[in-house]
């Protein structure tokens, strides 16, 4: 639960977006406080990933409001949004095959002071240090996910958008990713996590927003999740 005094970091209001002609977000509203881990839950096609991409300015057509630390970002280029201090880890992990592991790690420019150093990231994900000279896409799925998260920790961005970081990974790797997210939270990072895996989400998040058909339909604090299991199952169609 956010403290009453916690500062608002991101406020999304009436966010709409289109893929070509098809209208996919119909007015998304939610907010995230500094230091919180918040998930976007929902079925396939509910608009969770699109919400992250729209916040990042990656959709050609969108409208509404995305206020980051009071500054309006909707309508600016994704480059400026990144420079403002928001970092994105895409669902397909976005590892570059033409870059080595090390080059992938060093690719995103530093946008603010206070990011992790390369040795710190290597300490968090020792596999990346061992395989620094390999081609990025030669890594295993789990290692690629670590690289995708690791490279945005260097930039100094304080708000991380993670799109299904556990998708398709073995349980032991999922646990490792979960531990990493908790460590990042301890370090004061703010995280928006898109998840299909609700059980995983419940182990790391403070609050959950439920999305359906391109809008946010509900919000529940993690502490109250036990009381709402039935409702949640209905939303997620499990």
């Amino acid at each position: 639960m956010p403290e009453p005094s916690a500062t608002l970091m991101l406020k999304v209001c009436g966010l709409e977006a289109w893929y070509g002609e098809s209208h996919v977000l119909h007015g998304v509203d939610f907010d995230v406080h500094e230091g919180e881990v918040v998930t976007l839950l929902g079925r396939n096609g509910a608009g969770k990933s699109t919400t992250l991409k729209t916040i990042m300015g990656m959709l050609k057509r969108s409208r509404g409001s995305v206020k980051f630390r009071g500054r309006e970002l909707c309508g600016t280029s994704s480059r400026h949004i990144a420079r403002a201090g928001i970092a994105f880890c895409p669902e397909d992990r976005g590892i570059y095959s033409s870059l080595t592991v090390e080059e992938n790690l060093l690719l995103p420019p530093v946008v603010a002071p206070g990011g992790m150093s390369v040795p710190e990231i290597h300490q968090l994900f020792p596999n990346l240090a061992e395989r620094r000279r390999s081609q990025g896409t030669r890594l295993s799925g789990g290692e690629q996910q670590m690289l995708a998260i690791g490279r945005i920790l260097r930039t100094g961005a304080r708000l991380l958008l993670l799109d299904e970081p556990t998708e398709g990974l073995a349980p032991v790797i999922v646990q490792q990713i979960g531990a990493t997210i908790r460590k990042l939270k301890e370090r004061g990072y703010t995280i928006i996590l898109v998840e299909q895996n609700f059980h995983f989400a419940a182990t790391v998040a403070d609050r959950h927003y439920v999305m359906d058909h391109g809008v946010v339909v509900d919000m529940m604090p993690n502490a109250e999740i036990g009381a709402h299991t039935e409702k949640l199952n209905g939303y997620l169609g499990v």
Partner: protein
Amino acid sequence: MLIFGIPIQLFSTQIMLGLINGAFYALLSLGLAIIFGLLNIVNFAHGAFYMLGAFAALLLLEHLGINYWVALAVVPLGIGLLGCVIERFILRWIYDLDHLYGMILTFGMGLVIVGIFRNLYGATGLAYSMPAGLQGGYNLGFMYLPASRAFVIVASVLVCLATWIAIEKTRMGSWLRAATEKPQLTEAFGINVPLLVTLTYGFGVALAAFAGVLAAPIFSVNPTMGSDLIIVVFAVVVIGGMGSISGAILTGFMLGLVEGLTKVFWPQASSTVIFVIMAIVLLVRPAGLFGKQA
């Protein structure tokens, strides 16, 4: 002395001429490959920029007394800048359209540029006097190597190598490779991809202009010099594989050599051999020798 029944003199001279052609193929196809990789545009105006480079060197020498060595640095800079302006104000409008539009647009630009020069200077060649420092040559015992020719080969190898290192081994190069592979995500990391695109087009064009300056003293300078050469260069790019940096360089030199050797053993086939190789490569390995199979 004979090699395969051919006098060594003739043999080595043809190898040298082949390497010289290869030097131009490599520089031009390298520029085309870089541009295609990032912009997804086959730059049909490339031959025109090569011609512009040669003319710029000639005009600078005749009107301002600027010599070859200075032109080698100044002309690629100036024409590269022109390339940046063209990308920023003309090419940028067509990225969302079909490939065909890029082809037609750059092809048209090339025709306009060549047309202007043909109007101004006619179709006959103009001579660029051999610069001081490139006169004379070296007697290697088995052949005579003119300094001007040796310089072209060395300069091309060095520039190609420097470009390869810049793209494959530097941080700026990793941005270029990243933007080539996933432009949207690269932009979402805060990298200025549109600026990278502008600079890349400018750089590719500058390579063509550099080749043009190199060509000025050894070939005649005329408005169609680029159109004649660029057809072979497109074949080279197809053989090497679109978008491969090292592939473009190696294929350029290799095919120059093949062409030279064909001149020795079967002179009649020398102007066709590259196209025959292209046809075979397209049949056997459509992505090109160094291209990634789709």
